[in-house]
């Protein structure tokens, strides 16, 4: 991975664009943006993780998901769960553009894995309680960052854009660890779909609800923003009509085609589970 970490503004752009002027921004830490608003009559809480150059934690200044980000996400989501305890469950929408988790000694000592677990837990708890959890991938969704913020949605949406990548590890690092060149990795990815860095290939795995075409992700036009709002609303409605766990992902065409081994395992394990 190059030592130059480019600081992305996509998360902030889309958070501010979608939350809009009417949104009520909640007090938080600078790296975790939270705003409540309505989206076509649905109450929503938007969440984004953005770079904070003044982050108390030096290894989390470029938008990485670190300690503060994990625990504050958890807090903001749990506050929404509590507030809606006896009423209608608002949608929780994660705007995702995270280069990775934070890599640092402070992070490991103070339990970044637990901070990540806390956010994961909050997202899952929201989902299980009946809140539609939606993720909109606008940039990077890498590894522990994505697992913490975005991966637990009922419905995942992503822009069909070269700047949108889902992966377990940045390309240079992955090349080094698997002892291949970047070119070799790219070649492998052509036939091994789960290794690809292209969002179109990620879409083939069947976990995405919608791959959104035709949007200028870095500088969206008003009609494009409206389209995205419509897509998010449709996703919320679809989530409300679906399962609260992640089983909907296994029903997709992509899963039927590219996660065959997964489906076989599940079927066979169920058959053997009780037999004696």
């Amino acid at each position: 991975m190059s030592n130059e970490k480019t600081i992305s503004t996509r998360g902030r752009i889309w958070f501010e664009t979608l939350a809009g002027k009417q949104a009520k921004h909640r007090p938080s830490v600078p790296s975790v943006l939270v705003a409540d608003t309505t989206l076509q009559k649905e109450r929503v809480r938007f969440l984004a993780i953005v770079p904070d150059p003044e982050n108390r934690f030096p290894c989390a200044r470029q938008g990485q998901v670190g300690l503060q980000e994990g625990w504050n996400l958890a807090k903001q989501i749990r506050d929404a769960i509590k507030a809606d305890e006896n009423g209608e469950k608002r949608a929780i929408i994660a705007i995702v553009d995270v280069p990775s988790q934070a890599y640092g000694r402070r992070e490991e000592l103070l339990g970044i894995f637990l901070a990540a677990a806390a956010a994961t837990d909050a997202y899952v708890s929201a989902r299980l309680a009946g809140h539609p959890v939606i993720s909109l991938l606008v940039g990077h969704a890498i590894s522990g960052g994505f697992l913490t913020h975005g991966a637990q949605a009922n419905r995942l949406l992503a822009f069909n854009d070269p700047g949108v990548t889902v992966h377990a590890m940045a390309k240079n690092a992955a090349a080094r660890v698997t002892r291949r060149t970047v070119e070799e990795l790219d070649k492998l990815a052509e036939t091994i779909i789960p290794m690809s860095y292209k969002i179109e290939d990620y879409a083939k795995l069947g976990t995405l609800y919608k791959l959104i075409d035709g949007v200028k992700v870095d500088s969206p036009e008003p009609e494009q923003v409206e389209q995205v709002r419509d897509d998010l609303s449709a996703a919320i409605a679809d989530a409300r009509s679906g399962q609260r766990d992640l089983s909907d992902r296994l029903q997709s065409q992509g899963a039927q085609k590219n996660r065959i081994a997964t489906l076989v395992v599940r079927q066979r394990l169920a058959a053997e589970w009780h037999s004696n």
Partner: protein
Amino acid sequence: MSQPTPGAASSSPPTLRDPREYLTRKSLVELNARERAQALLDEGSYRELLGPFERLESPWLLQQGVVPQADDGLIVARGKISGTDSVILAIEGQFQGGGIGEVSGAKAAAALDLALEDAKRGQPVQVVLLLETGGVRLQEANLGLEVIAEINSSLIALRQHVPVVGVIAGMVGCFGGMSISASLCSYLIMTREARLGLNGPEVIEEQSGIEEFDSKDRQLIWGVNGGEQRHATGFADYLAEDDVAAIKECIVQAFGRGIPATHRSEQVDDYLKRLAAIDVSHQLESSEIRKLWSKGE
């Protein structure tokens, strides 16, 4: 068995303290995943599901010139633990560093889901995760990532009904996305040999420099990630000797406690307060955090 740490905080890699122990204890660390599951389940109760002869191998490895393992590196074993119906999900750390792939992950996620169905039907089964893993298996990248998200989701759903106990014995430890899973367990048992962390020393050094983390410094590694440190600072519930009987006893004790009133991952206000109270303007040392976050305080 949870043991108090003798003397001053020592964060060197584990060494044998009493030679006589060596003769009587049965190491879990030295066993492979299947052997660990067999050792921990009551004698005669072991029943493996989706075993190697079913050849549910990774569909992605051969094309990359990587030799597959017939069980894809994760063993699902039903049986009894001290007479109670249990399932052990044991990750084989020796196969591709215990990296989670499509099939191994599916076995775990499916087992957790089936255990949930059992619990809802009033026939709960205890699930034990033997975590020996570096996280996502890179050769299956996005499917590994996806299935870890599914495991985490299923774990959270299951632990509302019956405790889920995680065990990290070593020597691979538990890193990457699976460290999140470890932290979601109702109870976590570690040995001194074990390590728990989101990122391994090498990748921290690579990303943030050798000053941040010298990946050759074994004392630092165990001081940060080792079982003793993790137990002392509240990230693990039990520090067990590397001994089958001792670890099994911790497992039984943990299940005996029932579902915790609050899970570690739910203690949001507590941890936000703790983080706010620490001066992170300087680099932190293991001993400093042990003083601040000692168990029981």
